[in-house]
């Protein structure tokens, strides 16, 4: 029961915050929000021991039985990692934001969105029902949209928010279709039950489409190539949001989804290829683009893309353990997934810290352009220290946690090249190595171009009072800094308590999770991975020193190509074309719209009739026609047709009266006395109304539509009439059911009324009648108001008097 409450609490708090903010119009609101993630973090932490001993928390709230949709929550090792990140980083980010955001900002709105995001994200990682998961998934997109556009007066913020929304929601809908396909195959919406049936799935035709669609959702969310373009633009958000959503948590949702579905899809080679190759490509492209950025935040955005690609590729290599390869040592590949999960945590620590540091620099100096920064180490020693730890950890240097996971990554890339699959060669470790070199280069850029050099700039910083920020702002990044170092020295604590249950969740079929957890050691001899790291440092340093010389390659195609342009072009084309198209047919002319509707009716019914034309007409049931009835029908037909040709509206109105009263006569003949009475009354009033209008409206002008229009109208009219006739005759000739009216003939005993029609209206379907009276009342009110309402000009005149 505890997990559903964990998900619910942030939502409730987010509802509460705006009201609270009307009373507390100051930064104190942040301190009031802070306990929410903190308490959730503590509660979750208390579950760590039971999870480490192999337990899972499963809880179902029955919801829609008919649709098999239930609010099922599932806490296992994998969701625990994400849960701790969401609440833990949430606490730090809220604390940081209290100092980062000024009192003038709409703080109530900010924390409301932040809590909304927190709840949705917890919902994503704890839901076992895929449809519930999908709803939370889209909610994270929505709250991300709101947070990116937090400074909505800025054009770039709005554009960035729209881009992120369009891309992630497109992926989300693909994912939904994938989930529905999985439901088709398995008959369940529960992920755990799907995992149980994983062995039978590859035989279905829908297996591959479902897999690719779910990957689409994961890749868009986790900013994988070529969908990564939304992430740099999302940096328009306030820095706490970037640190939280766009590096630590939301972009990890795609990673989570891939890890979650490894047991379902891992046996497919296509899964291995897609996840690994897309991950590697993203890793390379992201790090390559990070080097050329001048804005520190954009640099971090590309580095986040790159690091997400790294984790993704590790999960891809990890899923190779599920492939059916005889004689292979599976622990090599499970170690890759282990490294991926480990790096997931490490990345959140060092990237979170770096984002906060960049935020501090921006906050204190008003710029984050590395061309304008330099020499800050002297003025901001504490900030510099944390930045150093974060950057060196990201570069993969000891003694920081990034070193450990980077080593594991290099080992995994070396291991996978021996996999006996086509397309898997020596180039995988080469790509990994090149990307790592580039990563090293941009990490050096962060440290050295911001905090060293450019001595000539220093007086400017002194004038502007460059110094470490208030202690409160440094608390959150310091905590992360301590973790960066702490995890280097005690990685196996994390391995035992957090990563072991997570590995059990990723590989449920492997039995004993102990064998899945390698012992992490900082020193493991002079193995190839260490040689690769030494190479990275050497080449990276050389590249950094000669950065100015070789940076020119970014101006050469294809390195200068941007996928952004494709997005912009598509968007402009789409907007322009739909605008033109809509303007073409939405002309504001009623007869045009009638034409569309009726042509559609004719096309649809015509097509349908062409399929059932074999259904015979059957006239044998027809009752006999007397001469009087012939005369009535002929009168009506000629009156109706005559209306079309008269030029005077008076005659037209009178002919309409003739029609109405003849209908009343027909009702008499056809054994419907009540209808006849009503029709006579209504027709009288209607004719009077028409004549009243006649009194106030001008005479008809001769309508002279162009000949083609006239022909088209005539065609539509005749075709509609014919379709009605044919359909009606077919229906009459082919009755499938007996009428249900026998029931109403018992009216005397059921209602006490002798008139069956009245009994139906007043008793059997009394609600209908009541609503009918309501409609009449509304119509009457409308008529009254339209007549009594003062003319606009008159109204203004009255006010001026």
């Amino acid at each position, binding site marked *: 029961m505890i997990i559903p409450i964990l998900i619910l609490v942030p939502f409730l708090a987010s509802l509460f915050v705006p009201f609270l903010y009307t009373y507390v119009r100051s930064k104190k609101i942040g301190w009031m929000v802070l306990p929410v993630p903190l308490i959730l973090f503590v509660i979750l932490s208390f579950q760590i021991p039971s999870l480490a001993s192999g337990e899972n928390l499963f809880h179902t709230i029955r919801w829609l039985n008919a649709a098999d949709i239930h609010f099922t929550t599932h806490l296992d090792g994998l969701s625990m990692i994400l849960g701790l990140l969401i609440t833990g980083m949430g606490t730090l980010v809220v604390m940081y934001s209290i100092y980062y955001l000024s009192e003038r900002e709409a703080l109530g709105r900010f924390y409301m969105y932040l809590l909304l995001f927190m709840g949705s994200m917890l919902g994503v990682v704890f839901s076992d029902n895929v449809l519930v998961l999908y709803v939370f998934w889209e909610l994270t997109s929505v709250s991300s949209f709101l947070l990116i556009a937090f400074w909505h007066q800025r054009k770039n913020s709005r554009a960035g928010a729209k881009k992120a929304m369009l891309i992630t929601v497109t992926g989300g809908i693909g994912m939904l279709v994938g989930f529905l396909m999985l439901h088709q195959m398995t008959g369940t919406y529960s992920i755990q039950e799907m995992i149980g049936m994983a062995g039978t799935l590859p035989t279905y035709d829908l297996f591959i489409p479902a897999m690719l669609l779910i990957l689409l959702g994961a890749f868009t969310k986790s900013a994988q190539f070529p969908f990564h373009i939304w992430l740099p633009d999302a940096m328009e958000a306030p820095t706490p949001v970037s640190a939280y959503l766009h590096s630590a948590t939301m972009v990890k949702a795609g990673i989570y989804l891939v890890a979650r579905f490894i047991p379902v899809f891992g046996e497919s080679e296509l899964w291995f290829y897609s996840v690994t190759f897309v991950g590697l490509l993203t890793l390379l492209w992201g790090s390559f683009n990070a080097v050329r950025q001048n804005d520190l935040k954009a640099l971090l955005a590309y580095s986040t893309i790159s690091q997400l690609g790294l984790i993704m590729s590790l999960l891809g290599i990890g899923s190779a353990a599920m492939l059916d390869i005889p004689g292979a040592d599976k622990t090599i590949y499970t170690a890759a997934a282990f490294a991926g999960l480990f790096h997931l945590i490490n990345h959140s620590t060092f990237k979170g810290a770096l984002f906060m540091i960049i935020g501090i620099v921006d906050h204190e100096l008003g710029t984050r352009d590395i061309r304008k920064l330099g020499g800050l180490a002297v003025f901001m020693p504490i900030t510099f220290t944390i930045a150093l730890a974060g950057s060196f950890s990201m570069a993969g240097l000891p003694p920081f946690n990034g070193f450990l996971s980077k080593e594991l990554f290099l080992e995994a890339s070396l291991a996978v090249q021996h996999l006996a699959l086509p397309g898997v060669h020596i180039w995988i470790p080469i790509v990994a190595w090149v990307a790592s070199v580039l990563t090293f280069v941009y990490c050096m850029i962060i440290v050295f171009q911001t905090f060293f050099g450019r001595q000539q700039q220093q007086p400017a910083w002194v004038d502007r009072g460059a110094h470490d920020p208030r202690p409160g702002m440094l608390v959150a990044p310091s905590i992360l800094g301590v973790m960066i170092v702490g995890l280097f020295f005690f990685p196996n604590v994390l391995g035992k308590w957090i990563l072991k249950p997570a590995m059990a969740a990723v590989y449920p079929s492997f039995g004993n999770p102990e064998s899945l957890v390698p012992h992490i050691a900082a020193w493991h001899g002079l193995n190839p991975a260490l040689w690769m790291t030494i190479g990275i440092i050497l080449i990276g340093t050389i590249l950094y020193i000669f950065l100015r010389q070789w940076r020119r390659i970014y101006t050469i195609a294809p390195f200068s190509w941007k996928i952004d342009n494709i997005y912009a072009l598509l968007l402009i084309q789409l907007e322009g074309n739909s605008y033109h198209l809509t303007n073409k047919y939405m002309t504001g002319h009623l*007869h045009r719209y009638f034409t569309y509707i009726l042509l559609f009716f004719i096309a649809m019914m015509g097509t349908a009739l062409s399929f059932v034309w074999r259904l015979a007409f059957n006239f044998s049931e027809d009752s006999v026609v007397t001469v009087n009835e012939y005369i009535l029908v002929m009168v009506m037909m000629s009156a109706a047709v005559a209306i079309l040709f008269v030029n005077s509206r008076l005659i037209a109105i009178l002919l*309409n009266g003739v029609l109405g009263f003849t209908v009343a006569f027909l009702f008499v003949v056809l054994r419907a006395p009540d*209808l006849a009475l009503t029709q006579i009354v209504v027709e009288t009033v209607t004719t009077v109304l028409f004549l009243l209008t006649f009194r106030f409206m001008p005479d008809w002008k001769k309508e002279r539509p162009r000949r083609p229009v006239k022909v088209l109208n005539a065609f539509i009219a005749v075709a509609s*009439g014919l379709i009605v006739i044919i359909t009606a005759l077919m229906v009459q000739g082919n009755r499938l059911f007996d009428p249900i*009216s026998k029931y109403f003939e018992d009216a005397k005993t059921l209602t006490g009324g002798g008139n069956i029609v009245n009994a139906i*209206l007043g008793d059997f379907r009394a609600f209908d009648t009541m609503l009918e009276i309501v409609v009449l009342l509304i119509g009457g009110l409308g008529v009254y108001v339209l*007549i009594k309402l003062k003319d606009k000009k008159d109204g203004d005149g009255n006010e001026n008097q």
Partner: protein
Amino acid sequence: METLITLLVGVLVMVAVYLLLSRNFVRIILGTAILSHAIHLLILTMGGLKKGGAPLLTEEGSTYTDALPQALILTAIVISFAVTAFLLVLAYRIYRETGADNLDDVRRELDD
């Protein structure tokens, strides 16, 4: 009888649709009125015509015409009256406000 009324319905629909497609308000409203006549007769025909006495239990005889379509039509007559009345007053009002008695003029008035 059923076939004859169905043919009548068809003719009424043709006239009504043609009127609906014109631009003058009064013609359009006449179109809606005629269309409702047509539909009322269609519903009645669907239940079968003259298959027994009027649906009054006090009448002689043991069989009655289907009463359900009649109840539906009764509702429909009243509603179509409300619609016609409202449309007429709306047309009158638009003419008062804009001096237009057809859709094209109103459109022009709005565009200006």
